[in-house]
C-alpha cells in the first residue's frame, strides 16, 4: 500500500504518518471518516463512465426529449419501448446469432489448435521446431492491413473452389482466417513450459500417449491460461470490425459491430433508438468482461510488465 500524498488531512485507515509536513495547523485537525481519495476517485470514475451512462439515459428518452437542448438529465417516463423498437428496426436477431456463431467457433478452434501446437512447441523436440516457431511468431509483427487484401483473395478462392459457405459474404469467411493465432500458440507454449516435467514423465512411463498426457494432465492444470486466452479471444472476435466490413455485405450475415454501424447509418438522427440498440450490442461483452475481469487484467498486466 503506498502512502497518500495528503498527510495534512488525517486518514482513518491507520497509515503511519510521515513526520511534520508543513501544512497549516488548522487543516491538520480535520479528520474525515473516510479516505480523502474517495473525493478524487468518485468524480474520476464518474467521468470515465459518463459516456456509457448518458447512452443509457438517452436510450430511455422519447424523440422529443432527445431533441431538447439543453437536455434533461433524467427522463420523466423512461421509454422502455425503445428497446423492442430498435430490435425490430434491423435484423438484430441475425446480428447476435452470427456474432455468437463466429465467436464460438473461433474460440473452440483456437483453444484446441493452439493447445496442440503450444504443447508440441513446449514439450516435444521435433525436427524443424525452432525454425517453424520463428516463422509463425514473425507473423505477429505484420499489421493486418498488409495481409487483409490477400486474405480476401484467399477466402474468395475458398468460397469459389471448396465450399460456398467459406466465401465472401458468408459466415465461414469470418471464421476461416481466425481459427488459430500465433499469439495463442505463443501464449500457451509459455504456460505449458511452466508445468513440471515430472508429472508428464510419470504418466508417460505408465504408458500414456502424448495426446493422452496433454488432455489428462496439462490441460486441467492450465485452466487459468486457457481462461485468459478464451477471454481475450472472445473479446477480439466479437468486437472485430474491419474484416467483417471487408467480407460481408448482406445485412443478414452481419455481425454485431458491423450491424450496429449499418444501423447507425440508416437511422442517423434517431438517437434514443440508436442508443437502445447500442446498449443491447454492448451488453454481451460487458457481461463477459465483468465475469472474466481478472483474466483480462492479468493478461494485460503481465504482457505490459514483461514488455
Amino acid at each position, binding site marked *: 500500500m*503506498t502512502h497518500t*500524498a495528503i498527510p495534512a488531512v488525517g486518514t482513518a485507515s491507520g497509515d503511519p504518518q*510521515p*513526520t511534520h509536513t508543513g501544512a497549516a495547523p488548522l487543516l491538520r485537525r480535520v479528520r474525515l471518516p*473516510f*479516505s480523502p481519495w*474517495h473525493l478524487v*476517485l468518485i468524480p*474520476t*470514475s464518474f467521468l*470515465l463512465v459518463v*459516456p*456509457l451512462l*448518458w*447512452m443509457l439515459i438517452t436510450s430511455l428518452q422519447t424523440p422529443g426529449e*432527445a*431533441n431538447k*437542448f*439543453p*437536455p434533461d438529465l433524467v427522463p420523466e417516463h423512461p421509454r422502455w419501448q425503445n428497446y423492442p423498437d430498435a430490435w425490430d428496426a434491423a435484423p438484430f436477431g441475425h446480428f447476435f446469432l452470427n456474432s455468437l456463431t463466429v465467436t464460438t467457433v473461433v474460440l473452440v478452434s483456437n483453444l484446441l*489448435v493452439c493447445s*496442440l*501446437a503450444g504443447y*508440441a512447441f513446449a514439450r*516435444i523436440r*521435433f525436427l524443424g521446431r525452432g525454425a517453424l516457431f520463428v516463422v*509463425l511468431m514473425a*507473423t505477429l509483427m*505484420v*499489421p493486418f*492491413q*498488409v*495481409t*487483409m*487484401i*490477400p*486474405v480476401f483473395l484467399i477466402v474468395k478462392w475458398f468460397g469459389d473452389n471448396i465450399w460456398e459457405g467459406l466465401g465472401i459474404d458468408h459466415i465461414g469467411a469470418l471464421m476461416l482466417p481466425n481459427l488459430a493465432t500465433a499469439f495463442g*500458440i505463443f501464449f500457451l507454449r509459455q504456460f505449458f513450459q511452466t508445468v513440471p516435467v515430472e508429472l508428464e514423465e510419470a504418466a508417460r512411463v505408465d504408458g500414456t500417449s*502424448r495426446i493422452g498426457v496433454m488432455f489428462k494432465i496439462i490441460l486441467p492444470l492450465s485452466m487459468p491460461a486457457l481462461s485468459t486466452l478464451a477471454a481475450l479471444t472472445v*473479446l477480439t472476435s466479437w468486437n472485430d470490425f*474491419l474484416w467483417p466490413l471487408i467480407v460481408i455485405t448482406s445485412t443478414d450475415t452481419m455481425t454485431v*459491430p458491423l450491424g*450496429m*454501424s449499418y444501423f447507425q447509418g440508416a437511422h442517423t438522427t434517431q*438517437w434514443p433508438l440508436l442508443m437502445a440498440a*447500442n446498449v443491447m450490442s*454492448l451488453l454481451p*461483452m*460487458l457481461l*463477459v*468482461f465483468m465475469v472474466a*475481469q481478472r483474466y*483480462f*487484467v492479468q493478461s*494485460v*498486466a503481465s*504482457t*505490459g*510488465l514483461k*514488455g
Partner: protein
Amino acid sequence: MAAGSDTVAHRSVRKRFLSADNAAGWTLVSPGAILIVLFGVLPVVMSLKLSFQQSDLLSPKTPWVGTDNYERLFDDPQFVDAIKNTIVYTVLYVPGTMVVGLLVAAALNRSIRFISVYRTAAYVTMAVSTISQGIIFLWLTDRDYGLVNAALGVVGIAPQPFLSSPSQALLVIVAMTIWGWTGFTVIVYLAALQGVPAELHEAAAIDGASAFTRFRTITVPLLGPANLFLLIWLTINALQLFDEVYQTTRGGPLKATTVIVYYLWNRAFVQFDAGYAAAMAYTLFAVIVVITALQFRLARRHVHYS
C-alpha cells in the same frame, strides 16, 4: 528422442526422421501451422507481389507494373495528407493516453474501501467496441443536442461543431480513443505501480522526501518498462487507426480525418485499386518496423530493469 543406437548410418538417419517424437510433434503442430502459414505467411508474400502489380481484386488480369505503385505514393497528395493526419493523431493520442492512464492508475493504487469498484469503472472501457464508442461520441458531441455542448453552454461557451468541423474532428477522435484505451493503459500502469516496493517509499519518506520528490525519483524510473511497452503498443495502434474514423466521419469532413489505413482501405475495397493499396500497406509496415526499432533503441539508453 531418437533411439540412435543403430550402427548403420542411413538406417539411423531414417529412424531419426520418422522417430515418434517427430511424428508426434508435427502432427500436433500441423493444424495451427497450416492455418497460420495460409493466413499469415502466404498473404505477406502475396501482398508484396501485389504491390508490384495493378489489380482490381476481381478480375484475374493483374499486369506487372514494377515500382510504379510505390513511385505513385510519393506524388499522391491524398497520401501525403493521410500521413500528416496520422502523425498529428499519433502525437496527440499516445502521450495523451499515457498521461491519463498514469494519473488514473496512480489514484487507483491504494486499498481503500470500494477500490475494486473504482478500478472496474476504469477498466470497463476495454470492453466497449470501437463502433459503440463512435456512436456514443457522435451523440455526445452532436452540435445541436449533444451533452458536451450542453456542458459548455453552462460555462458560457458557444456550441461547437466538433465532428462536423474539419479543424476539430480529428481532435474529437483523439479524445474518443484516449477514453477507449484508458482501461488498458490503467491496467498496465497499475500493475507497474504495484511493483514499486513500499520500502523504498518508506525509507525516502523517513529521510524527509516529499511525495512529489518520491514520485519523481523512485516511481517514475521504475515505470520505464511499462512506459516503453505502452509507447510501442499505443504507437502501433495509432498508426493503424480505422474503425473510429469510419464510424464517425468516414474520413471527413473534407478528408480532415482520413488517416493512412482509412485511405488504404478506401483504395483497396471502394476504388478497387488493390495493387496501389498493397504498396501503401507495405510502406506502412516498413514505417511501423522502423519506428518500433527506434523506440527500442531509445529505451535501451533510458529504461532500467530492476
